[in-house]
């Protein structure tokens, strides 16, 4: 399984990627929508874990851009808010089961990664 973590907080995605690598998952990270688009153009990813609220290209827009170009990719959304609006948008885009509220529980993320891959 190869995944791409996308969040504008570099320390969050880099640490999360390292922790996932200890669990046998190959994880890359990007800190902006633009960087994420460059990465998916260079390598193939099974799943992108995307923060909903990011500068410039937001998570929802980014998901749509990536899904259009790479239809095999699956998505999990992260959000800091857990607000009704974020939940509604995230659920519509990825399904209610594939939406995580920060701080992220790594075991919960692992579970969702495995579930979404089987979907």
């Amino acid at each position, binding site marked *: 399984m190869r995944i791409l973590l996308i969040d504008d*907080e570099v*320390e*969050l995605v880099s*640490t*999360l990627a*390292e*922790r996932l690598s*200890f669990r046998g998952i190959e994880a890359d990270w990007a800190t902006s929508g633009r960087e994420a688009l460059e990465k998916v153009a260079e390598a193939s990813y099974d799943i992108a874990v995307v923060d909903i*609220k*990011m*500068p*410039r290209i937001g998570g929802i827009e980014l998901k749509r851009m990536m899904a259009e170009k790479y239809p095999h990719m699956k998505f999990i959304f992260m959000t*800091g*808010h857990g*607000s009704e609006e974020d939940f509604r948008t995230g659920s519509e885009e990825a399904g209610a089961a594939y939406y995580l509220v*920060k*701080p*992220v529980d*790594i075991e919960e993320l692992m579970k969702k990664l495995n579930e979404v891959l089987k979907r």
Partner: protein
Amino acid sequence: MDGKWDIIGNEGFEFMGKMNASISHEVKNVLAIINENAGLLEDFTLMAEKGMAIDPERLKGLAGKIQLQVRRADRIIRNMNTFAHSVDETRSKVDLGEVVAFMAALSDRLASMKGIALEVTPPSRPIMITTSPFLVENIIWRCLDFAMAVAGPGKTVVLTADKDDRGARITFSRLEALSHASSPTQFPLDVENALAESLGGQIVVNEGAGEIVLGLPEAVD
């Protein structure tokens, strides 16, 4: 049209909500980073229990990163506290330079989400005015929000506070796009006019200079 104080009251709630949502989002990010660093420490502990060698420098680095985030959270919470206390008094003496710097700090995340950088030109000396601290913060936000919409992603909005004949003024500059046909228009609206009137001030949009100037009296009536 609603009365002036109805407009100001509704806007005040919206402003308070917007700032609190932004602050809570930033705090959540800090907590998420601390959570991952603590999780990484836990992972290292489990590895050490299985006999793997862990570099003490990595542990020291992680502790340092957690401390850094705690300091970041402390800054955010201090700003939140200052913001919350700005409603304590309807009139008080404030340093407008400090208020502008504070509002830029409070709005920094919202600006960053729009891909905009904020730059504050610090005044050479304190600019003391007697005013309503909360309403001043609110009108600065309204002007800044409009300025950011005009500037667009990738641009910098400069905020400068200085003294003038009537009292003081805040200039929002580098808004060259003000003169573009595609630029947002209709400013100031009822909300900004109501806030400006209650503060005894006025807003002037200078398209040619690419500036919005908010004038405020030395003391509000």
